[in-house]
C-alpha cells in the first residue's frame, strides 16, 4: 500500500515537535476528517532556518508532514512557495489515490504557516492566499492527482 519512503518517514518522522515563538505557525485539517497538521516555521532573513510539525492522522499524513518539512528546511520563502503537494508525493515515491489528500494538506499547512508569518510581519508573499477556515480537504483533491 505504501512505498518504502512513506513507511520510512512514518516510522522515523523528521522534524517532529514545536518551535517556541515561531515566526509562523499554520494548522489545517479538522478532526472530523481524521487529519490535522500543524507546521511551525522559524524564518530568518527570508530563509526557513527551522521547521517542526505535529500531526494527527494516518501513516500518509505523518509521512507527508515529515517530507514537507524536509523539503522546506533551509529554503527561501520563494522556494518554499514552489513546494506543491505533487512535489511532496514525488519525494515519497507516490501515495495511494485515497491518500493524495494528505499531500494536499501538507502543502496547505506549509502555506498556512507562511501566511501567519506574512501577517505577523506585514509583508506580502506573492501567490500566497489565506488559509481556508474549515475545509473538507478530502473532497478538495485536484483531479490530475487521482
Amino acid at each position, binding site marked *: 500500500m505504501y512505498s518504502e519512503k512513506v513507511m520510512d518517514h512514518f516510522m522515523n518522522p523528521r522534524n517532529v515537535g514545536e518551535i517556541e515563538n515561531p515566526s509562523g505557525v499554520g494548522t489545517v485539517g479538522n478532526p472530523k476528517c*481524521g487529519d490535522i497538521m500543524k507546521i511551525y516555521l522559524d524564518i530568518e532573513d527570508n530563509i526557513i532556518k527551522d521547521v517542526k510539525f505535529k500531526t494527527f492522522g494516518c501513516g500518509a499524513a505523518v509521512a507527508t508532514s515529515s517530507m514537507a518539512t524536509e523539503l522546506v528546511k533551509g529554503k527561501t520563502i520563494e522556494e518554499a512557495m514552489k513546494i506543491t503537494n505533487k512535489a511532496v508525493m514525488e519525494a515519497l515515491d507516490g501515495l495511494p489515490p485515497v491518500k493524495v489528500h494528505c499531500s494536499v494538506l501538507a502543502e496547505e499547512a506549509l502555506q498556512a504557516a507562511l501566511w501567519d508569518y506574512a501577517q505577523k510581519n506585514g509583508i506580502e508573499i506573492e501567490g500566497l492566499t489565506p488559509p481556508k477556515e474549515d475545509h473538507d480537504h478530502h473532497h478538495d483533491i485536484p483531479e490530475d492527482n487521482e
Partner: protein
Amino acid sequence: MQKIYFDHAATTAMNPQVVEAMVPYFTENFGNPSSIYEIARKNKQALDESRDKIAKLLGADPKEIYFTSGGTESDNWAIKGIADAYRNKGNHIITSAIEHHAVLHTCEYLESKGYEVTYLPVNEFGQVDPQDVLKAIKDNTILISIMYANNEIGTIQPIEEIGKIAREKGIVFHTDAVQAVGHIPIDVKKANVDLLSLSGHKFHGPKGVGVLYIRKGIKIKPLLHGGAQERGRRGGTENVPGIVGLAKALELAVENMEENNKKMIELRDYIIKGISSKIDHVKLNGHPTDRLPNNINFTFDFIEGESLLLLLDMKGIYASSGSACTSGSLDPSHVLLAIGLPHERAHGSLRITLGDENTKEEADYLLEVLPPIVQRLRDMSPLYEAYKKEQNLN
C-alpha cells in the same frame, strides 16, 4: 519477531481438520453433485450430509439450509429476495444504523428502487431497543433485518425479543449472524428468526462459502437465477469442498465452544483491564457484558487508528481499526458514530478480536508494546498538545 494475529473478526485460519475433510472433494471426489455417476453421487451425499449437520447445529430442518458464496451473498439474497417476494404487501424495511455494509448498502440500493428503509438508532453500547423496532413497524413493513452481533464492537442484540415482535406482527425477520455463528450458541427457533446469514471463514472454515437459513413457509425470490440447485432457489454448481469444510468447521466450533469461550472471555477481560489501567484517555466501545467472547474495541483519544495499526504491525501484531483510512473510505466507522462518538474519537479506534489459539503471553506482549506506541502518537498529535495546554491553563 513473533507474529500475533488478533483479527479473527476479519477472518480466521482454517482448522487443519477442516482442510483434511475438504481435500477429497478437490481431488478424487470432484464430480458435479447434479450428475448421476458414482463420483457425482459421492458429492451429492457429502452435500446432503453437510446440510444435515449444519441444520442440526442451528436447530433447523435441512430443507431450510441454502448454500451461498458467503455472508455478503446471504445478506443480499435475504433482503432483496424478501423485498421482491413481498412487494405486493408493502415496501418498508426496518434495519439498524450499525449493520454491516452488506446489509446497509443493499438497503440503500433498494431505496433507489423505491423501497423505504428505517435505520434504527442504537444506544451508547450499540444495542437496538426492541421497543424502537415495534414503534417503527408500519402497515407496509415487510422485513426487519437486525444483526445478531456487531462486527466492530461485538455487541450482541436482543434477537429473541425482536424476533418475537416480528413474529407477532407477521413480519419477516432476518438476522446477519456472520459474527455470531460459531462463537455463541444459536438456535434459529429459539431466536425467532425467519432468515439467518452465516459465513464459513469466520469460524476456521473456508472463505467463499456461506449459508442462508430460510424458515419453511417464507417466500423469497432467487438472487442468482440458473439451474435447479438448492431446490431451484439458488442457481450455480454447489461449492462442495467449501460446503464440506463449512460443516466441519461449524461442527468443531460448536463442539469446542464452551471451552474456547471460557478461555477467550478470560483473555478478553484481561486485555480490557490491562489497556484500561495502563493507558489513560481510552474508552471501551460496545456492551460491557452483552458482547462477543472474542471482541475488544477501544478508542484512544488524540490519535488516529491507521497509525496505531501500522506501528503495531511493526511489532508483529495484526489488528484492525474502525479508522477511515484502513478501509479505503475516508469516513470513520458508522458504528462508532452511531454509538455517539465524535468524529475525532471515532478515528482513533482499535479492534482486537481473539481466536482460541491466542495466549496470555501474546496478551502480555500487546500490553507491553501498546502503551509506548499510543504515547508516541500522542506526542506527535496537535490534539494532544492542545489538550495539555488547556490542562496547564486550568
